[in-house]
């Protein structure tokens, strides 16, 4: 009976008010997303009507002739993001594991701070670094690539420096701090009891770490998807190093293009209605692809949770089997 009647009354209206307030903010998010979708659809109608579904599989992007297709941009966006993720994931996980499990205590805070600092660098700065440092370095690498490799479709083309490889590398550098920071928080949140249980069963340090990673796998997957989302939408740094040539090519050395980059590049000067609509439709395509990818990652998480509901049991098996 600690509460006075007044205190009780205040709690009486404060709770619903808080609920309504936070609820309104949550509804606002939905409204914003629906609003974005509505505007994208509305402002791309000309292009949607004219090209229909072929917009998704046409390779031509010709503003002069008024002929537009999104395939090279879809390809470039997905290819660069997947490559970036492949490069970034091991590094980011390594950083996260080191920081949460192995790092000496005095180094932990400074290292974590530096990782987070990387995330705050504006992308234009990354882009300029890409033009003046990364691209020449990639070019040197290309010049010294053995001819046997150059003959394969993955490494064909002249050494230009700018291109898919430079874009994937710069994206990886930009994605790493995001993924590493979130993954570290996840690992830190793994209960000490889990580790203690592993050690009690005679697990080595390596096995205990595997257990912790396994325990936090859902959160870590979330961290990876966050990085992927960042890579999909990154614009400025990518456009400065990818070469901006709309083509569907496997080669890491070939200049290619992305959806976000073509919008940033051409929107300001697009005065013709169809051209503008086609650019907005690229935005719509990017929106839909992002929705699908987020949905897929949700599905993946849902399956993980469903297949192995007994979290405590499963991890213990791992060190034993190892």
């Amino acid at each position, binding site marked *: 009976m600690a509460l006075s009647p007044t205190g009780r009354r205040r709690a009486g209206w404060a709770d619903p008010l808080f609920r309504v307030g936070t609820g309104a903010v949550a509804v606002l998010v939905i409204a914003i997303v629906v609003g974005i979708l509505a505007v994208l659809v509305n*402002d791309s109608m000309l292009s949607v009507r004219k090209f229909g579904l072929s917009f998704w599989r046409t390779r031509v992007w010709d503003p002069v002739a008024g002929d537009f297709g999104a395939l090279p941009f879809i390809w470039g966006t997905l290819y660069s993001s997947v490559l970036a993720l492949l490069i970034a994931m091991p590094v980011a996980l390594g950083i996260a594991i080191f920081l949460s499990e192995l790092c000496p205590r005095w180094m932990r805070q400074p290292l974590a701070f530096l990782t987070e600092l990387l*995330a*705050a660098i504006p992308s234009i700065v990354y882009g300029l670094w890409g*033009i003046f440092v990364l*691209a020449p370095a990639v*070019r040197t690498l290309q010049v010294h690539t053995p001819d046997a490799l150059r003959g394969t479709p993955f490494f064909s083309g002249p050494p230009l420096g700018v291109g898919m490889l430079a874009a994937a590398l710069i994206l990886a550098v930009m994605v790493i701090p995001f993924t590493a920071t979130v993954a570290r928080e996840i690992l830190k949140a793994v209960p000490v009891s889990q580790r203690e249980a592993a050690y009690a069963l005679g697990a080595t340090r390596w096995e205990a770490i595997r257990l912790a990673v396994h325990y936090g796998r859902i959160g870590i997957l979330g961290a990876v998807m*966050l990085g992927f989302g960042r890579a999909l939408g990154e*614009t*400025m740094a990518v456009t400065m190093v990818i070469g*901006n040539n709309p083509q569907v090519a496997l080669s890491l050395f070939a200049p290619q293009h992305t959806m976000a980059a073509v919008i940033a590049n051409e929107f300001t000067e697009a005065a013709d209605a169809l051209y503008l609509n086609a650019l907005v439709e690229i935005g719509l395509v990017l929106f839909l692809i992002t929705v699908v990818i987020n949905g897929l990652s949700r599905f993946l998480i849902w399956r993980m949770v469903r297949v192995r509901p007994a979290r405590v049991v499963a991890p213990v098996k791992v060190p034993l089997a190892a």
Partner: protein
Amino acid sequence: MNAILRQTGHVRALAILVVTAVLSACSGGQTPPSGQASPALPGQGAPAAGGADQINGAGATFPYPIYSKWFSEYTKSHPDVRINYQSIGSGGGIRQLTAQTVFFGATDGPMTDEQLKSAPGPIVHLPTVLGAVVPVYNLPDVTGDLKFSGPLLADIYLGKVKKWNDPAIVKENAGVKLPASDIAVAHRSDGSGTTYIFVDYLSKVSPEFKQKVGVATSVNWPVGVGGKGNEGVAGVVKQTPGSIGYVELIYALQNNIAFGAVKNKAGAYLKASLESVTAAAAASAASMPADFRVSITDADGKDAYPISSYTWLLLYESPTDKAKGKKMVEFVRWAITDGEAYAKDLGYAALPDSVVKLEQDALGKIEVQ
């Protein structure tokens, strides 16, 4: 216990997510030159109106340095006139002027008949200064300036001339030892008046280029890599031996980038300079159409640099706000006379006198009473 710990973990992860999202949003916001977020859709986003007497304009980025100089100088002598200019690109300027969200526009390529028709009223083109586009290249072993003809540049950008020692290049550059390396072609990836001027010239001198590529601020390039902005193209060229690109004359001058000479219609090889650009304007002044929508690329005259162009301010012939219209007309009169003195220092070529005279007459016809 476990559940609670997990909960806190989630909350923390969420907090990090929010923080990182905010950070990335901030970093996005710190890059206004890219114009990612700022260019408004038609019908919205008029530049923030300050005082009641503020005149808002938007458009081309190429003349932005001289326009901002003009506006600040003019306000010093005319404190009652405040002009706010957003350099969002020519296309954006035309869109906003047509939607009447700005009082005046600015463009590097004249409006098309179709665009003029879709505007709510007749629009006047007012030339202000001139610029030029120059070919830049990176051949470490070549000393001295390379020479290009228009058709040669067109063939390089069509991907037909692939090697530096191609007979077509050797023919223009007798005595220069050219390497047998591939030509790496660089062009602008962003829609740009610079591209417009360059492809306008190439289309005039090469029927094949006109048919395959055409003229616009963004085109479908058959070959090459796209660099964003002048700095993007210059960056690629600087770091790639055997490359060729094109940038604005001002950019090449300010950054000490070597550029080639181009053969003009009279057959003379000229390097772009403020004088040779003004000469191109003077040569075509006699045939200036009444609406000033003229392309002066490939101009006549042996002193005329062939890849030159005007840049224009756009005003409604009968502005809705007569008081602002009057102020704007007075400003343009000042800009094309006294204001031209600032052009040279900023790397722009001044209008020829004959064009200034024609424009004075045109300004008199704008209905501001």
